[in-house]
Each structure stands twice: as C-alpha cells, then as structure tokens.
C-alpha cells in the first residue's frame, strides 16, 4: 500500500489520531469540540477514503472520545457511513467504542452513532483514573 500512517497529536479540544497502516489499527482518542469539526477532520476523512480504497485486510477502529460537540458528531456520522460502505463492499471491519463506565451519556452517544449500522461493533467500558 502506498499510504503512510497518520498521526495527529492530542490537543485541548481535538483528539489524538493514530492510524497505523501496518496493523490496520485506527485509533482516535480524546475530547472533540473544535469550533469547526470539518476543518479539523478534513485530512482524516481524506486519509480514510484512500485507505478504504486500498485496504484488503481487517480494519479495527478504536474510538475513545469522552465528549464530542454536535459539529464533531456530524463528522463521525460521515466517518461511520464510510465504514458501512467499506463493509458493504465486503471489507472486514470492527469498531470498538470505548465509553466511560460512570457516564451513560458517553455510552449512549456511541449507541446512537452506531445503532443503525450493520458492521461489527463492540461497546467497551473503562473507568477514568
């Protein structure tokens, strides 16, 4: 594959992005509330589009976002649409959604984003600190 791994460092209002091509392991971790989520995520979306077009292995997403604003929610709706397309074309994928055990909102946010999609997913609880 002629695509490089993608690493974006964690910032106050934007998550760390750690997309590892060799292991097809794509991690997004941290709070996401930029003023304009498309500006922040446009490179990520572009990268994913390319990666999905080339990847012939099982892709694992690990998403641990304790809080996202509505602008980011819209972007994740689009990201999961892309995942659904990839899976629909026979691609193998697993989305692992990490939610904080004592915060039901972070659980329901994941359920809401993933519930009507058909690719395999897992809800994974964790405890903060």
């Amino acid at each position: 594959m002629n695509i490089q791994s993608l690493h974006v460092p964690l910032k106050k209002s934007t998550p760390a992005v750690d997309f590892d091509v060799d292991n097809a392991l794509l991690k997004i971790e941290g709070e996401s509330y930029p003023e304009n989520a498309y500006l922040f995520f446009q490179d990520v979306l572009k990268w994913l589009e390319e990666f999905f077009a080339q990847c012939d292995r099982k892709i694992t997403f690990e998403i641990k976002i304790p809080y996202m604003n509505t602008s980011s929610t819209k972007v994740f709706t689009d990201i999961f649409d892309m995942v659904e397309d990839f899976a629909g074309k026979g691609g193998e994928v697993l989305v692992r959604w990490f939610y904080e055990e004592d915060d039901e909102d972070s659980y329901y946010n994941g359920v809401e984003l993933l519930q009507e999609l058909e690719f395999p997913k897992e809800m994974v609880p964790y405890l903060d600190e």
Partner: protein
Amino acid sequence: MNMFDQLQLQDLYRLVSVNGITFSYKGPITQDILEVVGDSLRDKLSSQAIENKLIRRVFSVFIEDAQNVLKHSYERSETLSEIKPGVGIVGVGRNEDNEFYVFSGNFILRKNEAGLKKQIDYVNSLDPQQLQEYYNQRRKSGTLTEEGSAGLGFIDMARKSGNPLQYRLTPCDDEKTFFEVVITISDRRQEEK
C-alpha cells in the same frame, strides 16, 4: 461623568449574587478562551464533589451554547486576524432549586429573529423521544455549514437539559435584536429518587 462614577460594581455584584451565577464571561468568544473557561468550569465543579456525568452534561451544554455565540453573534470582535470571533455573554449558575443553568446573551440580526424563534419553539414542542428522533434525523440528513454548524445545537442542548429552552428576544433598533437563552440542566438521577 468619568468612568469610575459610572462603574456600578455593587450593582454588578448584586446581580451576579441574586441570580446564583457561578461564573460569567462577556467579550469576544474565541475557541482558545472557550477551552480555558471550559476547563476552569470543570475544575470548579469537580472540587464541589459533583458527579462526573452531571459535570460533563453542564460542560457540554456550555460548549454548545458558547460556540453558538462564537459563530452566530451579530457583534464581531475587531481583531487583526481574519477571524472575527462573536461577542456575547456566557456563563453558568445555579437556580433556587440548586439546578445548574447555562446562559448566553448576544445580538443577532433582527431579520433572523423569526427564524430563530421558529427553530426554538419547534424544539420546545417535542417530548424527549421526539427530540431524540429529530436529533437523529437531522444528524443523518443535515450537512455542516461553512462555519461548521450542524444545526444540532439547540436540539442537543434541549435533550441534555431535560427542560424547554427558555429564551427572550428583545428588539433594540431596526437592525439588532438581543437574544437571551437559559438552559436548565436537571439532574435526572436525583429526580428518580
């Protein structure tokens, strides 16, 4: 009259106190300011032994509301950079029932008044389940505007609040209207007890 004569700090102090305002900020709302203010809000709530879930809910409504002002306020801050952040007042308080409320006030264009009223009145007319459905429908069918608005802000604030959004529109002149909104966040767990 000089500035000191006009400065009625005691009035300001009284207004903040009687309204139970925990903190408030008035001025240009940039993303940087929002991050700092949001953090100190969370620190303050954490130090009061408030449960994580409620802290996050208050924080989330605060960010959504403040980003509305940042994006949609008619009054823009004159900065040297290309980005002219919206000006307004935002803050958090506790009401007589000790519930948290998030508030904001800013000028909007008077011609946008009717559209805003329609939007909020519609959100307020929905029960929790309808609100959830409307949110999902908008989330899937809507598109982000150039400023990154998903059109989900009021719906999200209403469902996290569990209460109708209280608002007031006060026309100031032919051009401007002052828009105030208060979002009260009920601690649902306490209600269930």
